[in-house]
């Protein structure tokens, strides 16, 4: 039954618009082995795996299965050869039931009565690997962990001997991560090969047998996890010693800027997403909210910035009540916002860079005279933003959709802090950015703090939270399970707090 004993990728290169995403990459996996693929965002891990899965065609190089050259033109080829992949963003149809999703992905689904005929087989597989799932539920009703299990069942059902997991833990709670690792170890015992993509050192050290480190599209090195340590891997990954803590100066907390008082917010589906949260953010302070995505962070941020109505409770800025005012009034009272989905909310993609540089500020006196916009001043301001915030662009007269995600994010950050707002609400500001841009953004956030501003930072990245924040609240299912300060005795328990199993 088993199709793949060894898998090799030899000298794979791939470029997009002249930029190398992969350059002469080679790697191999053997039976019953978990290979870690470690690297920062943008290192080329996902591109490499998409080539293996047949989504992209390499510019050069080849794939060898059991020592023979394999032609993989599309996912159909890779699936039939025994390769399965669980993408970082699940490739599930949210509106369909679990069984419909599996029927779509399973290569031997019969044409008539597809759902009925595969149900039994799916059950057997789910039991064998202890993948517990309700087949008739719609995918959007499932937790991220459950959705991931659907993807894994899908791959296994298609006879995947090699399973590629792209950042599988990024959306999971610590508890779900434990369960995933148990499943992976089970699979390993059954002789499956697993390629585990991650940028988290701890996980790679724990679950993988070997690890290959990528940086900027090239392989930096490989190591046996039993014979290496985190420091060495981290050095390979970043190309220098990781700074585990930006030296931040001690500053005394000033007056409170934001007061949130017993706030309740509903999500899009009308369920309570934020339950009775109260806190305050002060001058000279960065207040972090840590937690796994989807625990009410977005709703809280949107309620504070006026995009979403609060169901009850009070929000005030420097004592002035701003609860449920319009986004513009809240902006005018001193709240800036770097939204979570920057492409969705933060920009108008088809407009020019300079148009986007004043989104939210176009009504301010300095950019508009009566009903006309002052384009000369706007363009000058755009130039300054581009220069000051290292936005890489050919010109300010280009449509902003032509910029990369990192450069858009820098522009948004620049725009949002250029007016020296008393409060900056930043949701996942460094998500998906490269190391340099991340570092740069974090330093700008610290600048805000130094100048007496206050920042409310939502992040899933604990390293980030601990690097820049003065205090950290942990959010779980719409409630704070605790507020801690770095160095606090509970710091080590933050994982438990994120999973809701500890409250302080």
């Amino acid at each position, binding site marked *: 039954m088993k199709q793949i004993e060894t898998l090799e990728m030899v000298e794979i290169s791939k470029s997009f618009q002249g930029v190398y995403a992969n350059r002469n990459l080679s790697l191999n996996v053997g039976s019953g082995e978990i290979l870690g693929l470690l690297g920062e965002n943008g290192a080329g891990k996902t591109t490499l795996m998409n080539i293996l899965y047949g989504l992209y065609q390499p510019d050069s190089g080849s794939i060898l299965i059991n020592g023979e050259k394999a032609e993989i033109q599309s996912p159909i080829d890779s699936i039939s050869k025994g390769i399965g992949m669980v993408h970082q963003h699940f*490739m*599930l149809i*949210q*509106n369909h039931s679990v069984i419909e999703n599996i*029927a*779509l992905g399973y*290569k031997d689904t019969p044409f*008539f009565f597809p759902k009925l005929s595969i149900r039994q087989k799916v059950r057997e597989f789910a039991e064998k690997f202890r993948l517990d799932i309700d087949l008739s539920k719609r995918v959007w009703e499932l937790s991220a962990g459950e959705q991931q299990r659907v993807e894994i069942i899908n791959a296994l059902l298609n006879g995947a001997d090699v399973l590629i997991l792209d950042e599988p833990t990024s959306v999971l709670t610590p508890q779900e991560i434990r369960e995933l690792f148990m499943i992976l170890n089970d699979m390993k015992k059954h002789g499956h090969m697993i390629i585990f993509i991650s940028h988290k050192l701890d996980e790679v050290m724990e679950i993988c047998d070997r690890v290959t480190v990528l940086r900027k599209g090239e392989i930096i090195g490989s190591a046996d996890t039993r014979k290496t340590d985190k420091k060495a891997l981290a050095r390979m990954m970043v190309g220098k010693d990781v700074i585990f803590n930006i030296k931040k100066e001690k500053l005394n907390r000033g007056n409170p800027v934001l007061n949130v008082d017993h706030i309740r917010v509903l999500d899009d589906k009308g369920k309570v997403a934020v339950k009775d949260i109260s806190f305050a953010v002060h001058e000279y302070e960065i207040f972090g909210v840590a937690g796994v995505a989807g625990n009410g962070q977005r709703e809280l941020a949107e309620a504070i910035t006026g995009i979403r109505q609060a169901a009850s409770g009070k929000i005030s800025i420097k004592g002035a009540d701003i609860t449920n005012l319009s986004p513009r009034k809240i902006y005018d009272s001193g709240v800036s916002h770097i939204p979570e989905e920057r492409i969705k909310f933060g920009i108008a993609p088809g407009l020019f860079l300079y148009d986007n540089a004043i989104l939210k500020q176009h009504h301010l006196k300095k950019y508009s005279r009566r009903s006309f916009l002052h384009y000369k001043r706007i363009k000058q301001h755009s130039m300054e933003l581009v220069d000051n915030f290292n936005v890489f662009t050919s010109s300010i007269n280009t449509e902003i959709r032509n910029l990369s995600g990192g450069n858009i994010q820098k522009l948004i950050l620049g725009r949002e802090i250029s007016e020296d707002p008393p409060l900056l609400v930043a949701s996942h500001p460094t998500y998906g950015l490269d190391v340099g841009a991340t570092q740069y953004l974090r330093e700008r956030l610290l600048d805000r703090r130094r100048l007496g501003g206050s920042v409310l930072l939502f992040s899933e990245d604990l390293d980030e939270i601990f690097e820049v924040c003065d205090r950290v609240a942990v959010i779980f299912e719409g409630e704070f399970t605790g507020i801690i300060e770095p160095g606090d005795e509970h710091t080590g328990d933050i994982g438990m707090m994120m999973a809701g199993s500890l409250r302080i």
Partner: protein
Amino acid sequence: MEDIIASVLQRTMIAGTPLLLATVGEVICERSGILNLGIEGVMSVGAVVAFIVTIVTGQPWLGVAAALCAGMLISVIHAFASVTLQANQVVSGLALTMLGLGLSGMLGKPYIGKPLDIKMEALSIPFLSDIPFAGQILFRQSPFFYLAIFLALAAWFLLERTLLGIKIKSTGENPSATETHGVNVYAIRYMSVIIGGGFSALAGAHLSISYSRSWIEGMTAGRGWIAIALTIFALWNPGRAIWASFLFGGIFVLQYLLQPLGISPNLLSMFPYAATLVILVLISLKDPRKLNAPAKLAEPYKRGER
């Protein structure tokens, strides 16, 4: 009294038939993620082609077959523009409507006002047609009526009980994920648009060779647009389309029924269009999550490399 009601209901069924055909076609098309605003034009082409072929050959079913082919053929334009060229589907659909109305007007000019001698006999279903009241309404109807009901049920079966149906729906919900499962999204979308066009053409054929048995320009009278509204009203479900279409068939009949009351016929002709707006308002009061609209409807899908 009972006779009048039965006759009204029978006419309701006839009036609802083209709406049902066109709506089911649009449901399949939209389920794959493509909005086809061209069905008014395709319907018109179907009507004229069916009429001409029938009058020339004397074979109504040949006319129907020709209409089907013509409808599918002209729909390829919309499929090409919206799938291959990723053009704006609103504009492309409008262009198809303009072209379809224009071509049908051109082709049909010599046939305007000519009566159709060949009659498509009503099909009486043995035994069932003898049931009092219901027999007259449901089982002594034009063959198009049975065809429409059969195709609606077949479309439901296709979407809900076959793998192809899952592929069509997935394509409309999340094309990029669907493609990773080895489904050719472009092919599915082409197919759905073409099938939808075929259905619209059948609706047109019914209008010209069975319903009014003549051809005049503009005889589709906005039925294609109403079918697009009915697609929403039917919550993209071919089963629901059946009763939604016949409800609207009733509204069409109602305008003739109310005429003797002394209301101006022109005001009454507004009725179906105004009713469409009212129905859409009512449906919008429903919970949007249960509306079932394909998530990526009218969004061009671009295959490939980031």
